[in-house]
């Protein structure tokens, strides 16, 4: 097999602190992003453990309601902005240049900055938990007037959000600039791997949505400290206005988390089915339609605020419409498997689980989209189950799949397949024990974000908590597997997986520090997907 890059020992790379702090190398920054995301996954996860411990039994055993609320709030912010988004950006950093034949990201210094903002932003956010009055406790949605009751944590929360927004926007600009300017000759847009496509579309979502959030939280800041009343009815403002602003960001944000996952699964399934991706063009169009539609459905998060009936009808129809392109994607994945020659290594297992469990989350999403029924579902554990199905067994499973898929390319060694499979099965079982009973809790009438509950909810909460602890513990195994793989093992070939398509498999494993310093000459074979 031909490889397109020269060997590792020709590279001149900085060492030590200088290498990591001042890095402008897309692979090192990608690694930093991924390590940071994994760290935050555990920080946010330990908060989830506190939540599940408190909910294990009725009665208040471990924490005060105020602290419980701040756990709920900070868990969400960390998992969304600290774990899933940076993990996606990390993968984009590592893989996009390798997949399109570019030497690096288009704006390497900005790349460094957009990463190094993150640790500081989260230091700000997490420091609030140790302040008098505790961390932000009004939910990650930050609805006023409640969020305006936050104590000293308030400005820290707002500035942390601003920083996270700045970091994400810089990351998005970088990805767009890279993809539009640095593709190797012959890599036309409709030849790009789907992972690259989903990230381009995600980047546009980020650039369009995050400034809106920044505006919204700035209005909160001036409402609290500078006497404005954007959201204060007594001053002529409107508390619901914030919800419109927030969800105009918030709904596209959901797809910011989900679209890269779609991209990953669209890489992994064809590789292990040894068959081209079914309906490549329709996948690209479906992703784009989902992204565009995502700006027209925000008020389905607000069906109970008392919208005019015409508004409720519009947002119901638009929401239900999203099921069509999402359905197309699922059907395409199934059709890709159809008549393939499948093997079931860990990445494939996580991707198949993604297809099933994300679809289950999509089903409850469709149910939630039916406005009159949402009047019952809204703000209950049914919603909690829904978004954890799409975000944990959806987005996070896809990210796990991606790590197992590309880990040998990053480290040069194969991971322990047996442990990988154990990690998969334990994750699969525990996450379903964790989240499936929450559907029942919601239907039976348990609202979300409560620290204590009536005894009729006791049994399912206990089951859910056991699943939660099991899922949390299982992820320690993941860390072990990754570390073990980084330190050594069976040498990985350049083409790690027999059926894998794409340019990244034409460079050696581990991928050298610098790749594609001169544009590669692409053959027809390299452009298959």
């Amino acid at each position, binding site marked *: 097999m031909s490889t397109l890059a020269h060997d590792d020992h020709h590279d001149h790379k900085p060492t030590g602190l200088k290498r990591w702090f001042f890095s402008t190398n897309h692979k090192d920054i990608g690694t930093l992003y991924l390590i940071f995301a994994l760290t935050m996954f555990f920080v946010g996860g330990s908060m989830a453990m506190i939540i599940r411990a408190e909910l294990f039994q*009725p*009665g*208040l*055993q471990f924490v*005060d*309601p*105020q602290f419980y*609320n701040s756990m709920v709030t900070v868990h969400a912010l960390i998992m969304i902005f600290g774990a899933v988004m940076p993990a996606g950006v990390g993968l984009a950093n590592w893989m996009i240049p390798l997949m399109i034949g570019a030497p690096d990201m288009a704006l390497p210094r900005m790349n460094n900055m957009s990463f190094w903002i993150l640790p500081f932003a989260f230091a700000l956010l997490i420091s609030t938990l140790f302040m*008098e*009055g505790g961390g932000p*406790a009004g939910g990650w949605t930050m*609805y006023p*007037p*409640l969020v305006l009751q936050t104590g000293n944590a308030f400005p820290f929360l707002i500035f942390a959000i601003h920083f996270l927004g700045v970091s994400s926007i810089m990351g998005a600009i970088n990805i767009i600039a890279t993809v539009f300017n640095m593709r190797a000759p012959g890599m036309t847009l409709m030849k790009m791997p789907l992972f690259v496509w989903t990230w381009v579309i995600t980047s546009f979502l980020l650039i369009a949505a995050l400034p809106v959030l920044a505006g919204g939280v700035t209005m909160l800041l001036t409402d609290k400290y500078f006497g404005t009343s954007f959201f204060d*009815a007594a001053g002529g403002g*409107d*508390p619901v206005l914030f919800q419109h602003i927030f969800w105009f960001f918030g709904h596209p944000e959901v797809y910011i988390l989900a679209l890269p996952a779609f991209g990953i699964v669209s890489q992994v399934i064809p590789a292990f089915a040894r068959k081209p*991706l*079914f*309906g490549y063009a*329709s996948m690209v169009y479906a992703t784009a339609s989902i992204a565009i539609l995502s700006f027209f459905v925000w008020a389905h998060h607000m069906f*109970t*605020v*008392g919208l005019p*009936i015409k508004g*409720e*009808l519009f947002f*119901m*129809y638009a929401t*239900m*419409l999203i*099921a*069509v392109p999402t359905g197309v994607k699922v059907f395409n994945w199934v059709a890709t498997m159809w*008549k*393939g*020659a*499948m093997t079931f290594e860990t990445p494939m297992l996580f991707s198949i689980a993604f*297809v099933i469990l994300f*679809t289950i989350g999509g*089903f409850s999403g*469709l*149910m939630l989209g*039916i*406005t*009159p*029924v949402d*009047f*019952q579902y809204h*703000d*209950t554990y049914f919603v909690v189950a829904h978004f954890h199905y799409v975000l944990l067994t959806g987005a996070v499973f896809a990210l796990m799949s991606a790590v197992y898929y590309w880990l040998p390319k990053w480290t040069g060694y194969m991971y322990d397949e047996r442990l990988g499979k154990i990690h998969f099965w334990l994750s699969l079982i525990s996450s379903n024990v964790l989240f499936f009973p929450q559907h*029942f809790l919601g*239907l*039976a*009438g348990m*609202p979300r974000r409560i620290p*204590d*509950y009536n*005894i*009729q909810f006791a049994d*399912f909460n206990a089951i859910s908590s056991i699943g939660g602890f099991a899922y949390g513990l299982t992820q320690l195994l993941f860390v072990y597997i990754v570390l073990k793989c980084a330190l050594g093992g069976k040498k990985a070939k350049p083409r790690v997986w027999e059926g894998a398509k794409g340019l990244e498999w034409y460079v050696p494993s581990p991928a050298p520090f610098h790749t594609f310093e001169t544009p590669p000459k692409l053959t027809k074979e390299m452009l298959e997907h």
Partner: protein
Amino acid sequence: MKGNPKLKSSFHKILLALLLTPLTAIAEWGLNMTQGVTPISREIYSMHMVSLWVVTVIGIVVFSIMFWSIFHHRKSKGVKAAQFSHSTTVEIIWTIIPLAIIIALAIPATKLLIKMDDTSEAKITVKATGIQWKWKYDYLDEGLTIYSVLDNNSAEVSQRNSGIDPMQSENYLRDVDEAIVLPINTKIRILTTAADVIHAWWVPDLGWKRDAIPGFINDNWAIIEKVGVYRGQCAEICGSGHGYMPIVVKAVTMDDYTEWVSEKKIEQEAKNNTKDMVLTKAELMTKGEGVYKAQCIACHQATGEGIKGVFPAIAGSSVAIEADNRLRHVQQIIYGKGLMPAFGEQLSDVDIASVVTFTRNSWGNNTGDVIQAKEVSEARTKPNVITAGDSKKEKIAKGNIDELTKAR
């Protein structure tokens, strides 16, 4: 997992346990949405069931095809992968079928939504106001107001490490001191609003929840068809007491309802006229403890210590100790201060007198003070010392008005 029988058998055991759990669960626990007791709640229930079956059938079809493929199209069976990668016909079909299903679901949903939106011709209107952390109900046609707070038993049990097992009380966190009483077979309009932050009024048996937003009034309706007690709770995070503001609707016949209204009016008349009541210190302390548990414990805690940085302590607070601050103490309860809501309307003179007496003589606040209802009654007519002079807000408001007049 091939070739590891030990692992396989333990895996089967886990799977078996998981399969059996839901079976017993179905028998014992509530798994599904309630059908409720209104025509609308029943329609919502059937729409929920229809959509649940639709997605279940789609799921079974799609996943069956997928699993069939997983079992048959695997490399280990010596299959050679086909290389097809698109089919316009198939893609058109699987775009149109979901579209048709969605339209079929949207039509009845639209009809139901239009029906729910029509609050006209309601016989009775009740306004529910969410307040951190209780509900206030105004029967607008009767001129009757009641406050509904978490019951004392739940409040006590729910204290952190109370040592009391919640499993003993069936309606733990789902009971209030005073339920809202509504007649059956009558179209009732329920307005929702809030005094401080956003809350949401939700009784699953009525079929809907609706946000209660300060400065907004949302309207909804229900016709309850069965006598009974229906329980729900606040559904929008509203601060540390969010889990502690239940809603209890007692549905009775029209005759019982009319009777309840007249009794309630007489009772409130008596309650509003307590300024001449004189109680002993022991009586005030007992009554005050009851009021404290119902109204104050959520923020100031059973220990009177509050929560540092969020809710100020009463134990050792100058307002609750110093003799000069007696009026301030009473007025702070009447008018509220900062995050603390005003209780002047909700609590009678004797309630306030007893809770002030209680807090001035508990947790080391040994003032020995005895406050009688008369003192509270007088405090209501005296100038407000809480906002007097030093209130920044008052200054700002005044400043704005002065400036506006100047500009004119």
